């Protein structure tokens, strides 16, 4: 297991209802994820590799969309995106100019816990990417 996988696996375990914890580049490419369907296919219930690639690309686009007037008004880049639907939601947090972390959670996950955990992952990942 790589250091990135370790970091993601620890966070994934701490968030109740977390389906996937991932780190990706702001060029739209997934870097690492946990859990990985290839590791334990029988137990895995999250999005498959292709679906997650598409989600990462969508989130990258959203960060791009918010880089205009929305960022200008805030005075900084948009750091965090939250999307919530009936069966769960996504939280994406920018770690640097190049990478972001992404948490996919099921219905009923606690938003405050997710945000706190995203902050913790960001700190650990930014150290790992130095």
């Amino acid at each position: 297991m790589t250091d990135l996988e370790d970091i993601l696996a620890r966070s994934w375990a701490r968030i109740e209802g977390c389906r996937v914890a991932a780190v990706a580049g702001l060029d739209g490419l997934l870097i690492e994820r946990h859990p990985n369907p290839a590791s334990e296919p029988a137990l895995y219930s999250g999005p498959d590799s292709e679906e997650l690639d598409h989600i990462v690309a969508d989130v990258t686009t959203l960060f791009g969309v918010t880089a205009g007037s929305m960022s200008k008004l805030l005075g900084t880049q948009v750091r965090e995106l939250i999307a919530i639907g009936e069966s769960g939601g996504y939280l994406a947090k920018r770690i640097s100019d190049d990478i972001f972390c992404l948490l996919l959670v099921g219905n009923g996950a606690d938003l405050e816990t997710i945000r706190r955990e995203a902050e913790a992952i960001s700190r650990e990942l930014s150290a790992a990417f130095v």
Partner: protein
Amino acid sequence: MATLTQVLADVLALRGVLAAAVVSVDGEILAGAASDTALLDRMTGAVTGALAAGEALSGLVTKSLIGAREEQREADDDAGDDGFAEAHGTALGDSSSHAGGRQLMIIYEDSGPIVFTPLPGGERVAVVALNSSHDLGRARYQLRGFTSSLANADVPLG
């Protein structure tokens, strides 16, 4: 100092990497390692053409970025909106200097992607064949840890 063969063995151990080689900028294979030697042959066969294509493409991209900057500068001069000009100029600068901008990725339909990474010093290029496009992001991140040793490792004799 480690030889290229030793460093390439470490690269080959990364998840998703099927073959890895280091070539000189004029296309000569300096060393290679692969789980499947036929794949290494195919990959190295594609190197020269890909390097030439990559060079041509990077020239086009550079020109288009410079062109976009100049067009934007003219538009900003006309509009007199300094804040937007600054923001837009920064975005273009970021994309051209982004770590991923120093790599060329080619995805073949019948096999996995091949990533070309120019190594520090400008004399060598690392070429890595991956199992699938899902391995691209991780492999690029992990390859960053090898660029310096791939650039400086001794070329094996013979």
